[in-house]
């Protein structure tokens, strides 16, 4: 993937990996990447990517357990979002073609993202209120219905709430 300087929106400190700084890069198209030098490499490379800074951090921490995030340095990462991957609910063929399902929780707001090759395809917003994970609109491709159902059920179980769809 080639990026030119005018495609980059911002660059922020993200943390340190094996003594090397890791930067969070945001493209003007809203794509995020963690850039840095892994152990034994001489050049910076993209270590993780995603459609949300918290997803990048989540993927980076899974791939590189030695990564140490910078405390509240990054504006983009300072929202304490909690990310979970629910891609096990996707069919094998959708997984093979690079699809993923994530939930990103920030306070009472829970966003479910369906991504392909780390780029957001669909986003479904929900809110934790009155003991329920409440959804308003859901517009997603029908091939993702089962995966989203699984992801929402998993998230609701984890939060100990019901699922509610507002009409």
């Amino acid at each position, binding site marked *: 993937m080639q990026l030119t300087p005018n495609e980059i929106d911002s660059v922020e400190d993200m943390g340190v990996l094996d003594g090397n700084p890791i930067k969070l890069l945001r493209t003007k198209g809203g794509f995020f990447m963690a850039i840095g030098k892994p152990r034994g490499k001489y050049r910076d490379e993209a270590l993780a990517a995603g459609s949300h800074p918290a997803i990048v951090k989540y993927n980076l921490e899974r791939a590189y357990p030695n990564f140490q995030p910078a405390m509240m340095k990054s504006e983009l990462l300072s929202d304490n979002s909690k990310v979970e*991957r629910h*891609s*096990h*609910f*996707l069919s*094998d063929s959708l*997984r093979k073609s690079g699809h993923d399902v994530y939930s990103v929780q920030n306070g009472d707001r829970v966003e479910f993202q369906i991504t392909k090759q780390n780029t957001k395809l669909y986003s479904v917003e929900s809110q934790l209120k009155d003991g329920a994970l409440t959804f308003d609109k859901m517009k997603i491709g029908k091939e993702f219905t089962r995966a989203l159902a*699984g992801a929402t*059920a*998993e998230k609701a*179980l*984890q939060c100990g709430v019901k699922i509610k769809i507002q009409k």
Partner: protein
Amino acid sequence: MVKQGVGIPTDYKKEAHNKFDVLWKVKIKGRKTLVDDIPFHCSLRVFDNLKKEDIEKVKEKIKEYGIHTPDSKSLHFKPILFHSKHTHEDYYMLKIDGMSEACDKFFHHFKEGYGFSHPKFMAHITIDKALYDEINKDGLEPEEIEFDDLTIENGASNTIDTLEKGLKHIGAAIGIAAGLAGSPTSTTAQKPPQQSTQPGASQYDSKKMLSSIAQVESSKGKNTQYPAVGGIHHGESAVGKYGLMPNTIRETIHMNRDLSAKHKKALNLKGDDMRRYIQDNPGLDDAIAQKHLQRLEHHFGQNTSKIGYAWFEGIRGTYNADKNKKDIENHWHVKRIKDAYSKEK
């Protein structure tokens, strides 16, 4: 918050004070007492009366059946609300699964002629509403339950005999024996009777066993396509390098504090979702297989045949096969495991 001791029917308290009970006192989440002077306990059998000769008979049968204090880590605890058809009352309980068959044998031996008896042995600990709610809210790890020595009580907290002082549970005994295997001061003689050890068991190696299982199940991860299995598995297929059934995976995660903390969500996964979850979490397959093997070693010692059989037929299946004198040595899976084990370096 509900007060301690709420939800215990009056009849229960009366019975606890008036009857004889062969039981293990139990500590749950650091709490010892259910209500008043009644300790938490798991009864083997409640008796209307026990004469001196009956007590001797009880002690004899405990010895004969090889009843030992259970290790909570090998058991399953589930909070339930039990409605008794006998007293027509509801009881908050922790239902226990996985108790040794010796307990059933004991229960059935004394079923008739000693007062009221339920149709079959149901291992449980009566709890109160406060604890029932707490467990439902926060969960319960097997490590949070501690069994004391087996005792005979003449009314609650009036111990008239301690039957099993010294040998805490099978796991501890096996652990000591395994640790000392090969040493001149081996404690093999202290092992409980159902824990058989094969000739050459001192050379038993868990890593080698795990590697042999992976070889037999999937050629060490090369072939992980498994057919669907019926019966209790409801059409699910085995998963991963060690051919673990989703049921076993869920059970192992549930029973292990570390795994449960990290992978609680897997307890609700089935079939392909479980397979993909295992794929997405590198190393989880190995961790679960290792824990499951430890559990089998706890049940069957270092007996490669029984472990090989149990990997395929389950713990209960292996005990049943043993009881029915089935030739497990010639079971195809056992033969393959033993063959792979002999080739492992």
